[in-house]
């Protein structure tokens, strides 16, 4: 079974430019999450999709970030325009819909390292 994949692995852009990150979850996983780790800080939740619907986007920092999951398969996270403080590693994770509380093992992708100059 293929794991969660993310593209690109690295991206270096200039302030003000646009970047789109992609995540392909494990096949059959309806839950998809985005997290990020800004240098020196903890990994923070950004948002959660269940299939194509946004379940929770409470962690999105501002309206420069737009996430989509058309068709309930892969997801994209677009940052427009990028700012210096957006630099960090963006992780995607997926999991099956739980059968009850406590059934939510999340599998993470390798992350996309974003550098905004």
């Amino acid at each position, binding site marked *: 079974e293929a794991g969660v994949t993310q593209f690109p692995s690295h991206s270096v852009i200039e302030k003000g430019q646009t970047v789109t990150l992609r995540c392909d979850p494990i096949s059959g996983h309806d*839950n998809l*999450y985005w*997290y990020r780790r800004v240098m020196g*800080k*903890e*990994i*923070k*939740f950004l948002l*959660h999709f*269940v299939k194509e619907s946004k*379940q*929770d986007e409470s*962690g999105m920092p501002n309206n420069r970030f737009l996430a989509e999951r058309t068709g309930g398969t892969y997801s994209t996270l677009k940052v427009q325009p990028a700012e210096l403080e957006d630099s960090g590693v963006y*992780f995607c*994770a997926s*999991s099956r819909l*739980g059968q009850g*509380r*406590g059934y*939510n*093992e*999340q*599998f*993470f*992708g*390798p*992350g996309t390292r974003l550098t905004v100059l």
Partner: protein
Amino acid sequence: SQQGEEDPQALSIQEGENATMNCSYKTSINNLQWYRQNSGRGLVHLILIRSNEREKHSGRLRVTLDTSKKSSSLLITASRAADTASYFCATDRSGNTGKLIFGQGTTLQVKP
């Protein structure tokens, strides 16, 4: 306040020794998960322990959970140089939709 705080922040041991990392949290949880991150790589899921479990084993890993103290520990026995990595605990809070709250992590160095 930050949930899922690990201690120590850094740990250095010799190969063959055991490594213990602790994690504390503040609210009720559905489960607690431990992850490993090797330098420059993604997060690898190690083990999940549910709120109604007290101890779980997986190979050289032993995880305990004390919900009364809101704490967990990860024990790696007979450590190897390849265990060198950052370790994170993450909590799935009761009532949440499964989003994980991570701590700062413990950086483990195992010297050969």
